[in-house]
Each structure stands twice: as structure tokens, then as C-alpha cells.
């Protein structure tokens, strides 16, 4: 028996998501009384570092031609590794790759699945794990009855814990199916923190009045090393790029800290952000629904408050 975890890499680099996934898998292995084995696909250097997060062994299909993601190829390789290692649980992040893999792997292995879980499983005779449903309005506990289980983990559900040391990397040889999807371009916003991975997010809405006013938001975000986000009407009117749109129809995020500035807090907006650990709302309307979902609130004109908040953070940083 083992817990197999797919550790995602990009352009030969592991991201925080990979360390989160291995940490989750290692803790799951402890719950089940077994070992955690990591598999990585592509030519990422230094795969042995996954041992720090709890992998007892790292398997790698070290082939640069596999660096570009394709759900069919990756599923095939991960399934072969699961079978070769008699895996009882297969873990990955609920990232853009993971979301394309979780269903495929479940079908491939004829395994029950739980997509987007945010807590460790319990194993009191049966395997149960929790995830948010109804866009964060409720939590479901899912019982998986198949011998092998597939689980994808919501980003930021737990912090990577580097407690171990590097381990040996073993080459894993798999039958690789022919590539049917070719990646032509990857366009990422340069320099900034990708929103779904950000621990701190500064988000603003229609209360900003116009795109020309976003300087104060960007300044605050830069100071904090935070990602920027926005409400749907802001993206729809092209004040801000589409990928910043959070909510029911946009991205769902769960940062440690979410600043909602000049956003009313409509239910469809909350659906994408209500799993944030701490929410700070700045709004001039004391009746704004967002205050009900907030931990800290400031009822005032954002154009006064945001620069003051930035100043206060500067002082804090320099103290």
C-alpha cells in the first residue's frame, strides 16, 4: 500500500502547489499508516527535495518532451505509477492541471473521487473527506468505498511543511501514449503573483469609479506582495483584466487575507471568496452586505482609507 502524489512542475520548476500536495499526501499516508511516494513528470531538476515534505521516494519520468501538460498522457503515467506502487490513494492539487486529471484518473482507475478537498481524510473504518459545495455555502463529507481513491486538494488548504530531508529520485519508465494536444503558447502575467496561489489578495470593485484610480490598489498589493483581484462588473467593463475576476463565474480563491475594497458583497461575488481565512472590507455604505461576511470592516471612503492603510503597512514593515 502507498499514497501516490503527483507533484506538478512548470518549466522544470516545482511550485508551492507541489509542496502542498506532497505535505497533504504525507499526512494522509500517516492517517492510513503507510508511505507517501511522489511522481513527477518532465525534466524538473532537484526532484529529491520533495523528500523534505514527506515523500519517502520520488519517481520521475525525466523527459523534457513531457513538460507541456496533456491530461491524457499525464493520466496514463500517474495511473501506471499508482498500479506499480499499489497505491490506495492518489493525490494532486485542484489546480488547472489537477482539475483536468482528477476526473480522468478516477475513470481510469475505476476509483471513487473527491475533487477539491480542503481537509485531511479521516479513516475510522471508512475513508471520508470534506470539501466545500454550493460555492462555499456548505461543506460535504464524502465517503469513498473503492479500494483506490482519487483526491484533489484545494490550494492553500494547508501550509507546506518541510520537516524531512532530500530523498533519492528513481527514474520511472512508463508507456507514454502519443500526444494529441499540443501547447502553442503560455501567456502569464509577468511579475505578479498568480491569483489562485496568492496568500494575500487585494480586490476592488465598482466603488473605484474608474480604471485610472487603480494606482492605490496596486501600490497596496505591491507593498504586501499580494495579488490583485476584482469584481465581475469591473472585469466585464475592461477596467481590469478578465483573469482578475473572482466569484461564482470567475476564479474561486481561498487566500489567508482578502481585502474587499468598494465591493458590495453580492452573493455571487462571495461564492468565490468566502473561504478566505480573514476578510477585510472597506466600504462607505454601512449597509453593504459584505460586512456580514467580514472579519474586519472599515466604513469610510476608500479614496481616504486605502492610502492611510498603505502608510500604516509601510510603518509596520519598517518597524
Amino acid at each position, binding site marked *: 500500500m502507498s499514497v501516490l502524489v503527483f507533484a506538478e512542475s512548470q518549466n522544470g520548476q516545482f511550485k508551492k502547489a507541489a509542496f502542498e500536495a506532497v505535505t497533504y499526501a504525507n499526512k494522509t499516508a500517516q492517517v492510513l499508516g503507510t508511505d507517501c511516494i511522489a511522481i513527477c513528470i518532465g525534466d524538473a531538476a532537484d526532484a529529491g527535495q520533495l523528500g523534505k515534505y514527506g515523500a519517502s521516494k520520488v519517481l520521475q519520468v525525466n523527459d523534457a518532451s513531457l513538460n507541456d501538460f496533456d491530461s491524457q498522457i499525464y493520466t496514463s503515467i500517474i495511473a501506471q505509477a499508482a498500479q506499480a506502487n499499489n497505491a490506495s490513494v492518489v493525490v494532486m492539487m485542484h489546480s488547472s492541471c489537477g482539475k483536468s486529471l482528477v476526473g480522468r484518473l478516477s475513470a481510469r482507475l475505476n476509483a471513487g473521487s473527491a475533487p477539491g478537498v480542503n481537509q485531511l481524510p479521516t479513516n475510522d473504518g471508512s475513508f471520508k473527506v470534506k470539501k466545500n459545495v454550493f460555492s462555499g455555502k456548505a461543506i460535504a463529507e464524502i465517503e469513498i468505498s473503492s479500494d483506490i481513491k482519487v483526491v484533489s486538494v484545494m490550494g492553500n488548504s494547508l501550509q507546506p511543511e518541510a520537516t524531512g530531508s532530500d530523498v533519492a529520485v528513481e527514474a520511472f519508465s512508463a508507456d507514454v501514449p502519443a500526444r494529441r494536444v499540443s501547447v502553442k503558447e503560455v501567456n502569464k502575467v509577468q511579475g505578479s503573483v498568480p491569483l489562485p496561489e496568492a496568500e494575500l489578495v487585494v480586490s476592488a470593485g465598482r466603488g473605484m469609479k474608474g480604471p485610472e484610480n487603480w494606482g492605490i490598489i496596486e501600490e497596496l498589493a505591491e507593498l504586501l506582495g499580494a495579488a490583485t483581484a476584482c469584481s465581475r462588473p469591473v472585469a466585464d467593463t475592461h477596467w481590469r483584466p478578465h483573469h482578475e475576476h473572482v466569484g461564482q463565474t470567475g476564479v474561486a480563491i481561498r487566500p489567508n487575507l482578502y481585502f474587499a475594497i468598494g465591493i458590495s458583497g453580492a452573493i455571487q461575488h462571495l461564492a468565490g471568496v468566502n473561504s478566505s481565512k480573514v476578510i477585510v472590507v472597506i466600504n462607505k455604505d454601512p449597509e453593504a452586505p459584505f460586512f456580514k461576511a467580514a472579519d474586519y*470592516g472599515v466604513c469610510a471612503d476608500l479614496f481616504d482609507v486605502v492610502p492611510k492603510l498603505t502608510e500604516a503597512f509601510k510603518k509596520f514593515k519598517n518597524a
Partner: protein
Amino acid sequence: MKLLVCVSKTPDTTAKISFSENNTQFNEAGVQFIMNPYDEWYALVRALELKEAQGGTVTLINVGPATNDVTIRKGLAIGADDAVRIDCDPKSSLYVAQQIANYAKDNAYDVIFCGKETIDYNGSEVGGMVAELLDMPFISYASDMQLDGNNATIQRDIEGGKEVVEVATPFVISAAKGLAEQRIASMKGIMMSRKKPINVVAPLEVADLSTVVHYDMPPAKAECKMIDPENMEELVRLLHEEAKII
């Protein structure tokens, strides 16, 4: 072009969520149901656009009970040609996907569309499952798709940006915002939908490997602490000392 669009029924985005039978069942009483927005607004509309541009048929498929016919009719009113309903309780994602794949395998669809996720289960897995069961490529979270003959160029949402991929038909695609513009059913569409067939098919017997055994409401938020707008140092202090996140 033979196009298949997987459509599911979900509670309206503003529905109040509650549970019954010791928090083991979703309480449907008084809940307004809609077609899952990603299925209706983006997947279905992009399929209709392709049909309008190149000819072909758009078929809807739903795995669910007879009460879902109202939702399916809405898709027919927006413009789908016909529909299939696999008559059963959609127990789990894999169960649903096995039903869809079983129906689709004999029908040679060029593209199978689904939504990026359902807004009730938030699984984003049915599309990938169908693709695996049919041995097809799967492109998830598509926000743009152009088709030239059998070759598609698809833009998909990834962390902090976009990826552009090329793939040949047949394939499965999951629809995100941007793939198409929402359409409203016309009066004529609604009238015509009444004559369009919903083909009811018996389900395939398959095992159910995962089940929701319990629901909970998220822990209630403590009262929001209001901070004096003149004292942002206090907010920073609380975030540092009390919330311990900076």
C-alpha cells in the same frame, strides 16, 4: 458536425441552502432550479454557434430524473435540436460520466461540451471522466475555441494566465466564461422547443464508489470588528497580533 452538450440542473445561484434527514440530503423544498450556468451560457451557446457556422446538430444530454425535463426544455428553447435524458438519480460524478460515455460511444460526436463545473457540487470532474472513458483528449476551462475543419485552437484558463493548445476532433471541452456570450430563449424558440424530442434512455448498471454522507454549514462568522477609519495602524496591529496573518 455532431455536437453533444452535457447539461446539469443546479439550484439558482441565490438559492438558500439547507439540508434534511439529519443533514444527509439537500433540501429541495422551495428551491428554484436552473440549468448550470456554464453549461447554458457558454457550452451550449458555443455549440450552437458552431452549428450555425458549419451545419450539424446539437444534442443535449442530462443524467437525471423526469423532473429535469423543464431544465432540458430550456436548452431546447435556446436552440438545441434534441435531447437525451438518462433516466436515473445522478448519484456521483463517475456514475454520471459512465452514463454519458455509454450513450456517446456509439454516436461519433465531434465535440462533447460540458461546463467547467457545476455550481452545486463544484467538482469539475465529469468532463475529464467522459474523456477518459471515451479515450479522447480533454481541454478544460476553455475561454475561446476556434475550429478550422477538424482542428481546434483552444485558449484555456490556467493559474495567472492563459494557455493556447491545438487539438483535432473528436475531443471533450469544458466551458469557462468567455467561450461564448449568453443567449436568451426567444418566444419562437420556446414554442418550437415543445415539439423537440427528449429521448429517455434507461441507465447502465454501474457501481457507486463515492457518496456524500453528511452536509454541514460553514462555521458562523464572528461579528465583524469595525475599525476607526482614522486609525489604520489599529487594523494592521489586529491583522498581525490577533489574526496573525501578516
